[in-house]
């Protein structure tokens, strides 16, 4: 079985962000980078499928500057067999449609049986790429999955809906699924596997080889929203803070009668 998992490198969401000089995105200087959290679940599920089926090959793909190879190495250390790095120093300027087209251009002639992606990215969160890739490749797609099972050429998944309800959806292969948080427990790469990952194939090619479409949208401006007025921010010694909060609760709520 040939499996593909697509991952994105994103900054840690607890970072202190700044707007870039052009005012079009966040500045990527001084940020800690990591694998998009949704993609961790996708990588883990792809590896579990690989382990279940036995005779299979798992490719991890990511688009971005050389820096994304660090995140790809984590995927390789978790258990992917090989990596494809699509080198693009200005990936943040690409819209979901362009990203999906690049992935579809790569995957189009490779006959993957299963493709895994995260359901959205933590930074942009458009939630479009996975579904677009499936549509471009004419694959059935089940998005937002919190359960996945494979048996006899069929995928049985559960989509997570609002309120925690799940929808049972199944389809045949080849197919694409987009993964929601909590789908599984992503494994920590062990030291021996981190060492083995260094020897795994990691091909790099330029995005211009795969980008054949034009952007359908553009970012006009990125900015910080005005802070909500009236919210009180308190800092200092925890004991003083605790005293202050008790007073606030007594004055402004009825909970400490």
């Amino acid at each position, binding site marked *: 079985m040939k499996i593909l998992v697509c991952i994105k490198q994103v900054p840690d969401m607890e970072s202190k962000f700044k707007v870039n000089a052009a005012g079009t995105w966040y500045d990527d200087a001084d940020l800690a980078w990591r694998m998009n959290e949704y993609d961790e679940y996708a990588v883990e599920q792809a590896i579990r499928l690989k382990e279940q089926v036995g005779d299979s090959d798992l490719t991890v793909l990511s688009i971005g500057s050389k820096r994304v190879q660090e995140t790809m190495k984590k995927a390789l250390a978790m258990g992917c067999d090989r990596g494809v790095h699509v080198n693009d120093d200005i990936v943040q300027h690409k819209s979901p*449609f362009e990203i999906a087209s690049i992935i579809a251009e790569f995957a189009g002639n490779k006959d993957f049986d299963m493709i895994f992606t995260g359901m959205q990215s933590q930074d*942009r*969160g458009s939630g479009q790429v996975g*579904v677009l890739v499936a549509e471009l490749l004419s694959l059935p797609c089940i998005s937002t999955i919190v359960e996945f099972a494979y048996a006899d050429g069929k995928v049985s998944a559960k989509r997570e809906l609002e*309120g925690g309800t799940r929808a049972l959806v*199944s389809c045949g292969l080849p197919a694409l699924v987009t993964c929601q948080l909590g789908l599984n427990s992503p494994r920590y790469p062990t030291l021996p596997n981190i060492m083995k990952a260094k020897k795994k194939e990691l091909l790099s090619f330029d995005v211009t080889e795969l980008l054949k479409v034009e952007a359908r949208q553009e*970012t006009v401006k990125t900015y910080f929203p005005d802070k909500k007025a009236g919210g009180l921010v308190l*800092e200092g010694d925890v004991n003083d803070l605790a005293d202050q909060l008790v007073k606030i609760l007594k004055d402004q709520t009825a909970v400490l009668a």
Partner: protein
Amino acid sequence: MKTLLVAEYRDGKLLASTYELVAFAQKIGADSAMFLVGSDSALPQYDGTIYLADSGKYNEFNPAVHKQLLLDVIAQEQPDLVVFSHSSYGWDLAPRIALGLKAAQISEVVDIVDGVLVTPLCNAKLRREVKAKTSQTVVTLQVGAFGLDSDPVGIPTVEQIDTDALAQVEFGGYEESEGGGVDLSKADVIVSAGRGIGKPENLEIIQRLAKALKGEYGASRPVVDAEWADHNRQVGTTGQTVSPKLYVACGISGAIQHLAGMKKSEFVVAINTDKDAPIGEVADVLIVADLKQFVPALIERLHK
């Protein structure tokens, strides 16, 4: 400006988010028509045309078929904007439509300013203004970002629609989340644990604070996914929606999905080491501190 609003139907009921789409169209002064795979037993109060496909025949979830039904209506209506809710149904169907139309899709719109769409970036710490370069645009609206000022009124004109399109997936029905357990929507005080508690053993600190305030404890999604708390304690879009007199968010960054579940609380206190955490957007008081030190200090004073 013409819009086509994609309403949603689940478990035999029309979802209230449908009216958020109507509110958006009104806000931009656009004409609208509606599309729904549902049933004429649960139509929205809407003064316009609804293109209705029978969910009994096509299923409530059937992306390839819903896509074709919708594309056919779009071909007829020629809307400038196709509007979805940014929901598990909307974010699944919208990209398929956008691709079919060769249109830009702009997701999770929170505002529209002078015709320019605004979306959140980086867990809503930032905002981004986006413009489509295509003549038609597909948008998904953040749930709760738009709303009608008054109760919806109207009786729609229904046009039945059908298709020969084939399903690509099989829909096997719904599974409700494990019921039972606590009903957080009845609690006056909720103290919730987020990833900031660090390890499962620290949930106990949150539970003690909840008890000291005579309330219930809740949890954000990461804590539930890690199995440190039961799903029935989860507050947020895929958990429970609450509006207690007091909500104390401990070590919760304030992901959009969590805020959606608690932002209507009367008074919100957030405890977080990150001064810029998005929870600050809805907090009446943000205590910048480590909850492992602050919460015990608070409990001590409450016991006096």
